[in-house]
């Protein structure tokens, strides 16, 4: 197909694809899936942090966490807008989320159990997210690439804040140190899972990389994350929960234990510790807010009608 070939050539030449331009159905569908999943992750990701906003230990920490959650909702907004340029509405995307037809990042199916988890989420989860997202600033779809540029700027700020919480905890009282280590113990492998299964088991990889909607392999990014994070853990005086973790002097990279992929697929299937709670919270918010959305639409329509009548 010459059209597809031309399209691929534009991508290979580093051109951006813009909304009104022709694109293969598969490209569109894959992008919608990927951007939508990312948007949903921002939204669902508010919940584990919201769980500690009401219990933040100081006014400053509460303010920082509120600002972070506000940013995340904002990221959700950019991404839904980017997805809308592909011809799918935000409400349709929500519906697919609520019906279980679209996913969000599995990491948010793990609970946040102590204040140190606010540190670990920033440090590890945002850290892994950035590692995924930085290359996506160069993705082939224009609106997506531009959204990622805005998002990455804020995310790296969040990651520093998370690390700052971990510092305070790791250098704090015995109980705080214990919380910090416990958070690392619980979030380490789920963070590694955020890059997805090994590339050989990954369904969408090859085509997505050709289309530049995926820029690196899962394993590359995971390795990069481990290489970056292990020295940080050492700096914090915390122990990564992996007895086989070791710097490989030949490769210069850390050798590490793979996460339990059976658990990964269990969580994906709905059996994570919080899947049911997260979806229930989102559905309750959505259904409970239906009357608000209807009222706002009705009010806007009345205003518009009154304006027309006045003209």
């Amino acid at each position, binding site marked *: 197909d010459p059209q597809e070939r031309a399209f691929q050539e534009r991508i290979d030449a580093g051109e951006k694809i813009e909304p009104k331009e022709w694109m293969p159905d598969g490209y569109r569908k894959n992008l919608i899936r990927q951007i939508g999943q990312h948007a949903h992750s921002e*939204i*669902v990701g*508010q*919940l584990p*942090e*919201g769980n500690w*906003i*009401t*219990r*933040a*230990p*100081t*006014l*400053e*920490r*509460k*303010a920082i966490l*509120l*600002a972070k*959650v*506000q940013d995340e*909702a*904002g990221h*959700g*907004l950019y991404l*839904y807008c980017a997805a809308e340029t592909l011809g799918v509405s*935000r409400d349709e995307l929500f519906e697919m989320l609520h019906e279980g037809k679209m996913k969000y990042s599995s990491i948010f199916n793990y609970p946040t159990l102590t*204040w140190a988890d606010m540190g670990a989420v920033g440090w590890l989860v945002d850290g892994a997210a950035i590692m995924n997202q930085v290359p996506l600033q160069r993705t082939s779809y224009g609106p997506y690439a531009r959204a990622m540029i805005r998002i990455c700027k804020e995310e790296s700020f969040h990651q520093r804040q998370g690390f700052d*919480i971990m510092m*305070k905890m790791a250098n*704090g*009282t015995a*109980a*705080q140190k214990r919380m910090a280590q416990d958070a690392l113990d619980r979030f380490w492998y789920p963070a590694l899972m955020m890059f997805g299964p090994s590339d050989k088991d990954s369904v969408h990889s090859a085509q997505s990389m050709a289309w530049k909607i995926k820029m690196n392999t899962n394993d590359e990014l995971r390795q990069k994350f481990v290489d970056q994070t292990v020295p940080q853990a050492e700096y914090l005086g915390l122990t990564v929960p992996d007895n086989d973790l070791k710097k490989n002097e030949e490769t210069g990279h850390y050798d590490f234990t793979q996460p339990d992929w059976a658990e990964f697929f269990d969580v994906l299937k709905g059996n994570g510790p919080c899947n049911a709670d997260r979806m229930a*919270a*989102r559905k*309750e*918010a*959505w259904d*409970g*807010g*239906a*009357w*608000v*959305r*209807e*009222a*706002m*639409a*009705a*009010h*806007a329509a*009345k205003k518009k009608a009154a304006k027309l009548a006045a003209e």
Partner: protein
Amino acid sequence: MDPLFEFLLRQGDNTLVLGHRISEWCGKAPVLEEDIALANTALDLIGQTQMWLGYAAEVEGAGRTADDLAFLRDAWDFRNLLLLERPNGDFGHTMMRQFLFDAYQIQNLKALEASSDPRIAEIAVKSGKEATYHLDRSRDTVIALGDGTSESNARMQSALDALWPYAGEMFLADEIDQAMAADHIAPLPLEYRAPWEAAVLPALAAAALKVPQDDFAHQGGKTGRRHSEHLGHMLATMQVLQRSYPGATW
């Protein structure tokens, strides 16, 4: 009891308690834009709390910090209006509470910009822009939801009916307020009533809501004499880390 300290607690506890309630919405708003706006409002209010309670702690001069005041006082030492500790209810209820307070707070801050206490004037100026934005937003939302559908109108009417008896406390004065007025630190709250009504009543009319005729006013929040049962539960959550791990820094 230093009246200035008490006065500052009232200011700071109002923003703290309302900020906390709003923050309970995190991730659960009916529209994504509202998630953002609610987080933003809570953030503003917590920022204002830092200023008010920070100054209160200085005035007290007992070595306490804003965080000590926020996280280590029990309910009876809180000085917020009863209105602000009411549970969130549905989104309309939350926005009605916000609107009734915002319309008062804007008068309060405007007046405090002319306070004889320069620190208070400074905090009022810094808070004013945020408060104006909050009021614009809560008023628009109350009007939209009151005017929207018959269901939304009924919900907003029931929110107004439930919250109206908590509005009157905003305008009550006691010896603290009198001391503030005598020192030109703040006017008597009664002076805010007329401009508050001038802002509130037309909006409620535009929202097609009936203003309750009973002027009964619950009180006991700003004096701390009798809070509601809700505040203690809020504080059990809010203060859990400072209470459970005394002396830790975060």
